Structure formats: structure tokens, C-alpha cells
């Protein structure tokens, strides 16, 4: 059994899971579809973030930067210039991955590591938020609004539409990103990423170009996050610097991959499936009981339990249960 083969059982279980997701909109209504779409977006960013943290070992606490900029690029192109998001997404990807490269370049070039790198990413994200809050072109704190969807709207052109449309669109994007990351992680680059994550000096002694490999992780991770931001913008219709570039956004997005399991391909998806509904349930419970803050408390408690009781996250445990058996948590697993 080797790290890069996919077992038949993995493929079978993965296909069943995907089939369920594909059929789900037939039986659940708009609310659950939107909730699931939110889960997909959370999973998408989680996959991207995990590529950088879980596989390449760089702790970024500022992914809101890429999420927000991606969102703004797609929204601005659609709203200000009437350009289809079919163009907006590639541009958003290029811009955000470029930003990821810049932040990564500065960080790696100057040897900023660990907690310092994390703080550097926070600083860039917060800097961007404040900048956007004072930049007329993007609407400052006033926000940026997308017009309502026209009655003659054609979703395949405008990439906007009903909850069901977003459901499938974001599902497809997430699936695509997941397969791509799965491919990357199992590729030569993936070996180099994990080598650098485990021990940068030892990896360099084996000829791994750590700087370049790290940069690639940062760029790809940022680009995927930007795409997620673009979907968020189209789906939500309004953008505010605080709600897409804020510190809270960065934190919210990394909770899912950590709960799910760092350095696993499926962890971010599982994490999103746990974290998003839990937050929603806690919110409703808090509201029903009239307890402001109950959801935050429950959210914190869940995280606490996971990190104390199952520090590798939930996926390795579940994978064992499903007999998908990862030898080590770093190994890419089937769905």
C-alpha cells in the first residue's frame, strides 16, 4: 500500500457521497441549499488554506485578504463594467494568487516564519481592510452592491441565479479545487511541500527549492481563496470591507480545516460540514433561549474539545471508522 494510490473503496465511498450531494437539491429547500453552499465555500477556502498550512506548513491568519480581494474583483467587474464573472473569476484568480505570491515572497525572502509569518499575513489583511474602507472606488465602508438578478437573467452567462444554481456552481468549483489539490498533493510538488513542511533545512539538503515551492503553495492557495470570494460576492450581492476582509473572516475560515484535520484532503470538507451547521444550530438555540453569545460559546467549546481530545481533527478518526485507513494523517486520502 502506497501513499499515492487510491483504493477502490475510497472511490466508491467518494462517489456515493458526491451522488448524494448532486441529488440533495431535489429534496431540500432553498434554505438548506444556501446553507450547504455556505458549507462548500467554507470547505473551498479550507482546502486552499490547508494546502498552505497542512501540506506546506505555512500558518496564514490573513486569508481574508485573498477572499475579500477575490470578491471585490469579481463584483467590481460585474457591477462597474458589466463584465461576466466568466472573465471576473480568472482575473480574480490572477490578482489574488499574485497577492499571495507577493505576501509569500516578502515573508519567505526575509525569513519571516511561524508566528511572525502569521502576524505578517494578519497585518496585510488588516491593512487591506482599512485601505478599502477609505477607497472611494470600492465604495469605502458604504459597501459595494450588486444589482438584483434580472427576470431575463441567464445564470450560465451572469453566473447569478437561484439558491439551486449557486449550490451546483459552488459544488462544482469546490469539487474541481479538491481534485486539483488532490492531484497537486500527490504530485512531485506535493512531495516537496510535505518535505518542506516537515523540515525545511533537510528538504533543501535534498535539493528541494524551498523558496519556490513555498511560493507556489502561497500563490495557489491564495488564488483558490479568491475564487471562493468571487462566489461569495455573486451569491450575497453586497460586500463590505469588514465582512470580507476582516480578521473575523480569516479566523472563521481556518476553524473548519483544523476541526476536520490538518494536512488531509477531506478534513476541510468534513470540518465545514461540522462547523457551519453547528454555528447555525447554536445561533438558533441562543435566539430561542434569549441568550446572546450562546453560539459563540458553543463554537468555542467545540473547538476546545476537538483540540484537546482529537488534536489531529475528525477526519483521521472517521477515515479509520470507514476503513479508509490513512497510514498517517499527512497522507492524502480518498473522499
Amino acid at each position, binding site marked *: 500500500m502506497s501513499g499515492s494510490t487510491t483504493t477502490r473503496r475510497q472511490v466508491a465511498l467518494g462517489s456515493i457521497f458526491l451522488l448524494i450531494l448532486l441529488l440533495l437539491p431535489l429534496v431540500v429547500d*432553498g434554505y438548506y441549499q444556501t446553507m450547504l453552499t455556505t458549507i462548500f465555500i467554507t470547505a473551498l477556502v479550507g482546502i486552499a488554506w490547508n494546502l498552505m498550512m497542512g501540506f506546506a506548513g505555512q500558518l496564514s491568519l490573513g486569508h481574508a485578504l485573498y477572499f475579500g480581494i477575490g470578491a471585490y474583483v469579481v463584483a467590481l467587474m460585474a457591477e462597474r463594467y458589466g463584465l461576466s464573472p466568466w472573465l471576473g473569476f480568472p482575473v480574480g484568480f490572477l490578482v489574488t494568487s499574485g497577492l499571495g505570491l507577493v505576501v509569500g515572497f516578502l515573508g519567505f525572502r526575509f525569513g519571516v516564519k511561524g508566528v511572525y509569518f502569521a502576524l505578517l499575513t494578519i497585518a496585510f489583511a488588516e491593512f487591506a481592510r482599512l485601505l478599502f474602507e477609505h477607497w472611494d472606488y470600492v465604495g469605502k465602508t458604504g459597501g459595494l452592491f450588486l444589482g438584483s438578478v434580472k427576470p431575463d437573467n441567464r445564470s450560465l452567462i451572469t453566473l447569478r441565479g437561484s*439558491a439551486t444554481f449557486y449550490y451546483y456552481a459552488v459544488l462544482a468549483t469546490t469539487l474541481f479545487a479538491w481534485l486539483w489539490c488532490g492531484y497537486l498533493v500527490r504530485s512531485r510538488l506535493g512531495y516537496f511541500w510535505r518535505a518542506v513542511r516537515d523540515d525545511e533545512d533537510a528538504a533543501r539538503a535534498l535539493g528541494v527549492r524551498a523558496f519556490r515551492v513555498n511560493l507556489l503553495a502561497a500563490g495557489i492557495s491564495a488564488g483558490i481563496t479568491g475564487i471562493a470570494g468571487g462566489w461569495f460576492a455573486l451569491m450575497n450581492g453586497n460586500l463590505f470591507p469588514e465582512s470580507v476582509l476582516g480578521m473575523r473572516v480569516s479566523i472563521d475560515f481556518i476553524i473548519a480545516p483544523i476541526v476536520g484535520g490538518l494536512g488531509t484532503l477531506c478534513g476541510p470538507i468534513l470540518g465545514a460540514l461540522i462547523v457551519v451547521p453547528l454555528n447555525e444550530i447554536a445561533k438558533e438555540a441562543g435566539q430561542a433561549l434569549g441568550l446572546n453569545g450562546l453560539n459563540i460559546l458553543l463554537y468555542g467549546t467545540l473547538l476546545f474539545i476537538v483540540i484537546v481530545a482529537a488534536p489531529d481533527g475528525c477526519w483521521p478518526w472517521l477515515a479509520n471508522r470507514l476503513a479508509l485507513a490513512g497510514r498517517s494523517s499527512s497522507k492524502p486520502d480518498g473522499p
Partner: protein
Amino acid sequence: MTESKFYSTTRRNLLMAGASGLIGSGLPMPAVLRAQTSALKVGVILPLSGVLSFPGIATQRGTDLAVRMFGDEGVKLEVSYADTESKPENGRLAAEKLIRDGATILIGAWDSGATISAAQAAEAAKVPLVVNVGSAPQITEQGFTQLFRNFPPSSEIVAKGVALFKDLPRGNGFDPKSAVVLHVNDTFGQATGGAVKAVFEKLGLGINILDVISYDARARDLSIEVAKAKATGADLVLPITRVNDAILIVREMIKQDYNPMAIYGPSSPGPYEKAFTDALGKFADEYMTSVPWYDPTTEIAKKVLARWAKDQPNDRFELNSGFGWESIQVVADAFTRAKSTKSEDLHAALKATNIKDHPMAGGPIAFDAKGQNTNIAIPLLQNQKGAPVVIAPAAAAGAKVKLPMTKWADRA
């Protein structure tokens, strides 16, 4: 898109058929009759937690009061709330949740961002959304067909308010030549701050705006902002605030002994709140605002205030509770006329809304092509003896304006 709508409507029909079938089998009541007498399910989206929960909860109190009052008159409304946690992006999910739970009409979402977010979902599901509070001009500019706003855009509040301010008698030490704008840098504050500067220039008040100072929405310390304002030496301070920053500003002005001729917040929510007057006591007096307000001279306002005093003796009936109340009035009125709980019937009824008797000052509640009620009056308010009173226009005035402001040091 068409496809998905097909799914969702079929599903809803299926569900309803199932539900009525169930009732039909259990009760000897015809399904049709049952539908006619059933309560209207109203979904209300508000920021009930997070930074905006303060006004959100005030709006909820007004909404609840109206539900009780209309319930007494036999209008059966079943209200459920969804919390946005003060995050604009949660509006959509909140709306969809309420629609799932059976709401055929929505009210919300207090804050402009969440309102637009919710409107996307309402638009997709063809469920009318009555905006209770939300002053961003963009709300009615997005082409939403399901949206009805019974709240003026900030530019209009400012324009109408400043026009009244312009006519205030000058002299006796009140003859402002210059002003400084201090505004919170969030969606609302930024739009309003810009409007204030524009309106002052357009109306030709002869008052020069020396500086526009914006401060962070989360700022806890406004000493530098006030120092900067004081350094301009402006005769007028125009703060665009919510309640706590208004308190901070006044406290700082006292500490820094900054005594302008007047403090006037056009379209600034907060200074009329009980929290403001309680916190500042005598220092809260003579602070002016212009916001939509209830008209205490009308019968319905007296009725509402009387019931409020009974139900909520510790809270003040103000703008948020007022528009919360009216949002239910608008819905109840549409429901009564439509005699249906179906979204499309309610939508048609809302289009024809024309409510003459309502507590907030202004002409009849009616919606134009964009879904905007343009008949809302904006009075000028001034805090006097610990509570806000209308001082202009003269017809609605409950007291005379007191200007220039008493110096802080003289308020022993």
C-alpha cells in the same frame, strides 16, 4: 434558474398539499376555510446579537407591540425572528430560513447591508420584503421588485432635516458661520456624512464645513477626534453617530471644554435614546437631531404610546420601535386587504398600500415604483429635560428650541 424555481415551487406545493391533507384528515374542517382563517406567517430579520443588537432589539420591541395590538383587533400574525448577528452577509441565509419555515412575507433587516443581502433571497423566492429600518440609498436602486421600504434614505433625512435647521431663528449668540462633521465610518455614517456636506452647500446656509472627520465604528475613545474638531474652532458640531459614540463625543467635549453654539446630528440615530439621556443627564440636553419620529399629536400615536408605556415602562418609544411597529402595520394592512397569506397576493396588496393613520410623522404610507415610501416627515428634535421633543416644524412642535447651547460648565 427556471429549472430550480420549478423544483422549489413544486416542493412547496407538495408540502402544502401534504399539510392540508393531514389537517383535512384529522379535522372536519375544509382545507379552503382553514387556509382563509390561518394566521399570516411573518418573518422578521433583525440584528439581535452583535454590535447592532441594541437598536435591533429596540426594533423588535416595537414589532412585538404591534403584533399584540393588531392581534387584539383580530389580525392573526405569527411572527418569527431570524438574527443576522449584525453581519450583513447573514441576511440572505436568515431570509431563506424564514421562507423555509413558511413565512410568506418578510420584514427586515434594520441594517442596510443585511437588507440587500436578504432582498436577494426574497427576490429569488418572490416573497415581499418590507424594510423596517435601513437608510442606504442603494436599497431601492438595485431593481428589487419585492422590496418595500417604509424608511427614508439618509440623503432625504438629511435634506429635510437641514432645511428645518436653516429656518431656526438666529441671534442671541446663535449665528453659526462654520461647522465640523464627525461621522462614524460605517455604511450608514459614510453615506450620511457625505450627504450632510453636500446638503449644507446646496441649501446655502452660509455655514462653511471646515472639516469632515471620520472615526472607526469600533472606536472606544474619541478624544483625538474631538480634539481635532475643537481645533477647527467650528461654531457647529454635526455628529453622525449611533448611541454610544454620541455619548463618548459629548463626554469628550465636556472634558475638553469645547462649547459650540449647537450640536446637531442630521439623520443621526442615538441621541434620542434613553441610554443617551440616562448616561449624560443634564449634559444630554440641547443636543439636536433630525430623524423620522412619531407625531405625538395623532390619535394612533397616543394609543401606541399608551400601550407602550404599559408594556415597556422601562424603555423609550423611539425611531426603531416606531418603524418596527409600522412595519407590522404595513403587513397587517396588506394582509387584511389581500385576505390571503400567499406572497403574490400580499405583494399586490402592498403595491396598493395607502395608510393614513400611522404613528410616525408624515403623509400616508404608500410605495412608489421603486418600493419607496416618500411621504415620511423629518422633524427636528432637541433633548430637553432628559427627553427628546419635537421643535420643528412649528405644527408638530412640542417645545421651543433652546439655542445657543448652555456651556458645559454652566450646567450645574
